[in-house]
């Protein structure tokens, strides 16, 4: 159970008989706390009704993208300790109240059916499976769409530049192509050669891009993990991502090369050799 908005005072002594708590790594770093330190916690901002606890250990909070910007200064208490600390003395039911109950069901049980059954048996209770409903336009679905849109724009810009570069590179070899035509090579044969060349260059470029992405993956993750003080992984290059990149980059590279070559080969051989 998480104690939020608690006042926190560290005491420099050890007492094994005090109730134990866990504190987050971030809180431990910020307040210079270690295992077996004694701390005083109060739910009241003024420090009233404070109780002493022993730091049993320090934990890394579960990475949660929804709380990326939230302060990770947390402490975990046993439920009775938290209720004793926060319950309203004038409310006899306060010691019976919790915010939520996490339930682990049998591995093969239907979570939706169980949630419906439970909600039906206890009026006023909201029960829902932990996993998101498929197709729900959640925050991360929207962010994924945004990143996809940015990727599309980047691919369009790259394609335009790629075309410009291939036009220039092919143009640089116009005389060579003209001579090849004059000595009898067909346009199809030259185009095939350009295709093979484009395939090699696009493949090499795509592999270099993937290597660069793999090399920068750790750098980006380390930067954002430092920036947000979290163990969350921001960039993960999976085999799927690699195949997707290859499937887009290689055909685009080859198409650019063939398109530029085709535009050149449409001209006559004599024009190509400038005669």
């Amino acid at each position, binding site marked *: 159970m998480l104690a939020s*908005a608690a006042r926190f005072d560290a005491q420099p002594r050890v007492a094994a008989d005090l109730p134990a708590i866990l504190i987050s790594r971030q809180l431990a770093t910020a307040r210079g706390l270690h295992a077996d330190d004694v701390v005083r916690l109060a739910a009241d*901002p003024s420090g009233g009704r404070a109780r002493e606890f022993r730091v049993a250990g320090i934990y890394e909070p579960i990475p949660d993208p929804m709380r*990326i*910007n*939230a302060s990770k200064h947390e402490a975990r208490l046993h439920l009775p300790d938290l209720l004793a600390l926060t319950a309203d003395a004038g409310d006899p039911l306060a010691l019976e*109240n919790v915010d939520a109950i996490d339930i682990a069901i049998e591995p093969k049980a239907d979570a939706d059916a169980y949630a419906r059954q439970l909600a039906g048996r206890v009026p*006023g209770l909201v029960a829902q499976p932990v996993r998101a409903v498929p197709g729900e*336009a*959640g*925050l991360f679905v*929207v*962010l994924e*769409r*945004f990143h996809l*849109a*940015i990727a599309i*724009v*980047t691919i*369009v*810009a*790259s394609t*335009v*530049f790629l*075309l*410009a*570069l291939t*036009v*220039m*590179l092919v*143009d*640089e070899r116009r005389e060579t192509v003209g001579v090849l035509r004059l000595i009898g090579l067909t346009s199809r044969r030259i185009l095939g050669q350009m295709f093979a060349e484009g395939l090699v260059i696009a493949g090499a470029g795509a592999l270099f891009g993937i290597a660069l992405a793999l090399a920068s993956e750790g750098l*980006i993750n380390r930067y*954002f993990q430092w*920036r947000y003080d979290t163990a969350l992984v921001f960039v993960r290059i999976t085999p799927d991502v690699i195949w997707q990149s290859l499937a887009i980059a290689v055909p685009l590279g080859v198409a650019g090369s063939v398109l530029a070559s085709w*535009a050149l080969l449409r001209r006559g051989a004599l024009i190509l050799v400038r005669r």
Partner: protein
Amino acid sequence: MNTLPFAVRTLRRQPARAALGILGVAAVGALLFDMLLLSRGLVLSMQDALDRGGFDIRITATASLPGSGPRIPDATTVARTAASLPQVDAAVALRFGTGRVATGEHRPAVAFSLFGAEPSRLRPWTILRGRDLPLRSDARVGEILVNDVLARTLHLEPGAPLTLRPSCRRAAEALPPVTVRVAGVARFPFDTVDQGTAAMNRLDFAGACGEPQGDEADVILVSAAAGSDADAARNALARALPALAIATNAQLVGRLEESGFSYFRQISTVLATVTMTFGLLLITVLLTVSVNQRLGTIAALRAIGFSRRRVVADVIVESVLMVGIGGTLSLPLGFALAQWLDRILKRMPGLPEELHFFVFEPRALVLHASLLAATAVVAALYPVRLVSRLPIAATLRNEIVS
């Protein structure tokens, strides 16, 4: 011939290449422009939304955002103390809760946000139809304001009765239903696209919550008096109410900028840097290949009397021309792209309708132009080096021999 017409002719000699280069710069420039709009878009949008509300300062019990921290006790007295200061024009205490309206057997109830507001000359909402709540703070009036979403969902019009079950604590409650009359339809700040919202006078809200003597508020909205700015009013309030957290709109936005909005600033910085590097690399390659193909021509120009400075200027102007035309095209392209990306991001759940991710400010335009100008100059450095160190005789000889 001057440098500019000469550079134009150079580009026109290879129209396909020039057009593709310019298009590429336009695409990269559009993405860069959008990242600049994104970097401060939410902050500007939030600042604008807060300022349009007519209140300059928010008072809360702690530094937590209104509604997420503890409530302000004895709120009426606090609001009166605040309003009595010469730097303050009005102070309105607000209490947040939720309401539910049953829509029939076996059908889910309609849930909505419910405000309890102290009657005041300044209101934190805008009336669209019907009339405002009566300005009575001594008795209940039995009326409610609803927003357009709630009016549409429940088929409500001014004068219609509405039976609702309020919930005023953060724990589950089962309060008895209350029936009120709809006074009007209003627009509330920070409503999400499909969020239902309603507002009642404080006494009606407290009565519905079963706390007729309750005098707590989640937030007190304060507007600065004419002739006094928000900072002066904040300082006066901080002296008069030292136990409470008092923040101006700018401070609130600054706090959000440091926490909630920093993800988009970070992502825009990373993408803008990648975009700039990508653009720089590709313009450099385009110019370098172009110059390499024209080495013979450039050597010939040097031989007939063109100075080194002149041919260097030609390359720089060619770069500036390509980036300049592409950069100009990138603005309308960037605006169109920003609309599309904004529509995608605005589908985020729980996002207020009036917030936008991509917001134009003159600073973004200046920064965009400066970055592209720097790109044009830096991209020209290597080709300029090639041109400036070109050995005239050897190049001409090689050209003739080849």
